[in-house]
C-alpha cells in the first residue's frame, strides 16, 4: 500500500528526514513513535502532500504509484487521508457542507457522478453514529469553537466519510480524555479492513492499547532506527527514548 524508500526531505534547507524507509501493506496497522522533533509530523505532512517540504531524495509509492509529483488534493483523490494534529477552524462552512464538498470533489476527480443526497445523508448518519457525534454538531462551523477532543473526533468522522485507502493519524490521541479515546479508537478499528492501511503517529503508548498495531517503528533524527511488534511500544513507554538514543549514538 505505502512504500517509502530512502526519503530525504527538508524545509528551508534544513534536512528533517534523512533516509527514511517504511513499508506498509494493506490490512496492516503501523505505529510510528519517537521523541519530539524526530520528524514524525513532517513525515505525515509529506505523505499528504504539504508543499513547503522539499523532497531531495527517495520517493513515496502509493499502491505502486509514485505520488511525489501529486498535489495534496490529488493524493486525497487516490485515497490518502491525514488526521491532523491541529485541525484548522473554518468559520461559515459547516461540517456537513465540508464533507459534501470533499466527497463530491473527490468523486468528480474519479470520474463519478455526485453522490445522491439520500446516500450522502445515509452515510453521514451511519458515520456520525459510529463516532457518537450529535447531529447538531454537524451543522456547526468546521472546528470553530470545538474542544480539542471534539476536533479529533471530527477528524476520524471525516476519515470514516472519506473511506481512505491509507489513513495517517497524527497525534490523534492528544487532547482526548479516556472516553473520547475509546470512541475514536473504536471508530478506527471498525474502519480497518483488508483493503486499507493505517499509520498511527504517536508520542505515547496509550492509544496503542486500543488501536493495536501490527508493527511499531521508532523514528529518531529523521530515520526509522528500530522496528518491532507492539511489545516495542510497551518497552518505550517503560524506558523512554534515551536508551534508543544511546544505542544509536554508541
Amino acid at each position, binding site marked *: 500500500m505505502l512504500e517509502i524508500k530512502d526519503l530525504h526531505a527538508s524545509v528551508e534547507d534544513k534536512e528533517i528526514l534523512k533516509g527514511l524507509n517504511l513499508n506498509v501493506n494493506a490490512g496492516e496497522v503501523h505505529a510510528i513513535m519517537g521523541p519530539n522533533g524526530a520528524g514524525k509530523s513532517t513525515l505525515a505532512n509529506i505523505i*499528504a502532500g504539504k508543499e513547503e517540504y522539499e523532497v531531495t531524495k527517495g520517493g513515496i509509492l502509493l499502491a505502486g504509484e509514485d505520488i511525489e509529483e501529486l498535489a495534496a*488534493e490529488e493524493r486525497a483523490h487516490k485515497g490518502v*487521508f491525514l488526521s*491532523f494534529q491541529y485541525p484548522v477552524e*473554518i*468559520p*461559515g462552512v459547516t461540517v456537513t457542507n465540508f464533507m459534501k464538498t470533499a466527497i463530491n*470533489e473527490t468523486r468528480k476527480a474519479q470520474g463519478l457522478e455526485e453522490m445522491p443526497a439520500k446516500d450522502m445523508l445515509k452515510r453521514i448518519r451511519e458515520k456520525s453514529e459510529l463516532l457518537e457525534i450529535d447531529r447538531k454538531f454537524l451543522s456547526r462551523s468546521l472546528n470553530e469553537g470545538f474542544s480539542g477532543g471534539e476536533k479529533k473526533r471530527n477528524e476520524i468522522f471525516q476519515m470514516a466519510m472519506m473511506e481512505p485507502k491509507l489513513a495517517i493519524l497524527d497525534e490523534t490521541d492528544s487532547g482526548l480524555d479516556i472516553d473520547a479515546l475509546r470512541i475514536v479508537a473504536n471508530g478506527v478499528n471498525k474502519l480497518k479492513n483488508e483493503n486499507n492501511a493505517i499509520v498511527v503517529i504517536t508520542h505515547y503508548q496509550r492509544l496503542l492499547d486500543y488501536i493495536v498495531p501490527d508493527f511499531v517503528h521508532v523514528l529518531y533524527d529523521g530515520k526509522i532506527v528500530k522496528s518491532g511488534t507492539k511489545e516495542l511500544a510497551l518497552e518505550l513507554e517503560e524506558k523512554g527514548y534515551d536508551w534508543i538514543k544511546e544505542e544509536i549514538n554508541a
Partner: protein
Amino acid sequence: MDLKEKLVSSFLAFENTINVDDTVHDIRSQAIKTFEEKGFPTKKEEAWKYTSLNTVLKHDYSIFPKEENAIEFKDIKKYFLHDLDTYKIVFIDGKYSSHLSETTHEKIDVCLMSSALTYDKYRAVIDNYFNKIARQDGLTSLNTAFSKEGAYIYIPKNKLADKPIQIIHFSTGNEAAQMLQPRNLIVVEENSHVQIIERHQSLTDNPVLTNSVTEIFVDKRAIVDYYKIQNDNQNASLIDNTYIEQQAQSVASVHTFAFGGNITRNNLNFYQKGEGIDSILNGVTILEEKQHVDHNTLVHHTEPNCESHQDYKGIFDEKSTGVFNGKIIVNKEAQKTNAFQSNNNILLSDKATINSKPQLEIFADDVKCSHGCTIGQLDDNALFYMRSRGIGEKEAKALLMYAFANNVLESVKIPQLKNRINALIAKKLGVDIGFDL
C-alpha cells in the same frame, strides 16, 4: 472645456427643463454656486488622499439623458432579483422606465423623485426632508444642483412595506460617455419597516460616471435595511453619497457588496439623533484587475445609549486597490455609546493595495469604542487542510474566502438576495462548488 466648466455652463440649459419657481430650485441654485466654488475633490484633501478622480473626470460626458432607450426585459432580467416579489424603480440612462418598473401609492409611496418634486401632495415631505442632511461638499452639491430624478420612497408611520424595493439604474451606452446623477429620498416614519436593494449596471463598455445622492430618514423605532450591489463593468465609476438620519430606538443597516466597476467611492454617513439607536455598516469588497473601491464611513453619535457596528471585509487580487476610512465621532453627551469597527483584508497578490484608516473622535468618557484592522494572506495551513480532503486549490481558496466574508453574508436578511450574492461571489472566484452557506 473641462467637466466642471461644462457642468456649470449646462445649468442654464437644465433650468429650461424644470419649474424654477419653487423652493427646491432655490436649493439647486445655491448648490451650483457651491459646486462652482468647491469643484471636484482632489488628492490634496485628506478624505480623498487615496482616491483620484482624474482619470474618471477626463471623459467628455453627456450630462442630460437622451430619450429612453428601448430595452427588452429579457436582456436585463439577470440583473433583477427575479425569484423575489419586489417593487421596482428602474431607470435607463437616467430616465424612468415605466415598463420595467412596479411602483405603488397604496398606503406607502414607492415612486419617482420627479413626481415628488412636481406634485403638491408631496410638498410637505419635500419641504421637511429634501437636502436637509446632504453635506454641502462639491460632489453632493453638484448632484443637488441637477437633482430631478431618482427614487422617492415614503413609508408613513406604523406601516410595513409589504415587499422589498429594488432600485436599478441601467446605462445603455447610447452616448459615448455618460454622467448620471440620481437623487433619492427615503422617509420612513415611526415604527415602520422597509428593505431596499440598489444596483447600478452599465450594459456596455462606454464610460459611465454616476454621482448619486441618497437621503434616508429613519424615524423612532423604524427599521431600514439597505443593500447596495456594486458589480459594474470596468469602465463604470460610481460615487455614492448616502446620508442617514436616525431617531430614537431606530435600527438602520447598510450592506455594501463591492465586486466590480472602475472607481467606486462610498461616502456613507450616519447621524444619530436620539437614544437607543443602532447603526450597522457592513461591507464585502472583492476586487481584481485595476479596480478601486474606497469606503469612507462616518458615524456620529450625539445622544446616550446608542450603538454602531461596522464590519468591512476586503479581498484584493492583481493590481486592485482598496481604501477603508472609518470615522466615529462620539459627542460629550453621548455617554454609554458602544461603537465597534473592524476592517479585515486579504491581499492575494503582491501588487494589490489596501489603505485602512480608523479615525475615532471621542469626547464622552463612559463609552466602549473599539476598532481593529487586519491585513493578511490566505492561511496556508487552512488551504492544506482543505486540499488534503480532496478539495482543489481554487475551490479551497474560494471556500476560505467565503469563510472570511461569512459573518457579513450571514447578516443579509433577504434569503434570495443572500443566494444571489453567494452566486456572484462564486462567479467572481471562478468556482462552481456544490455547497450552500
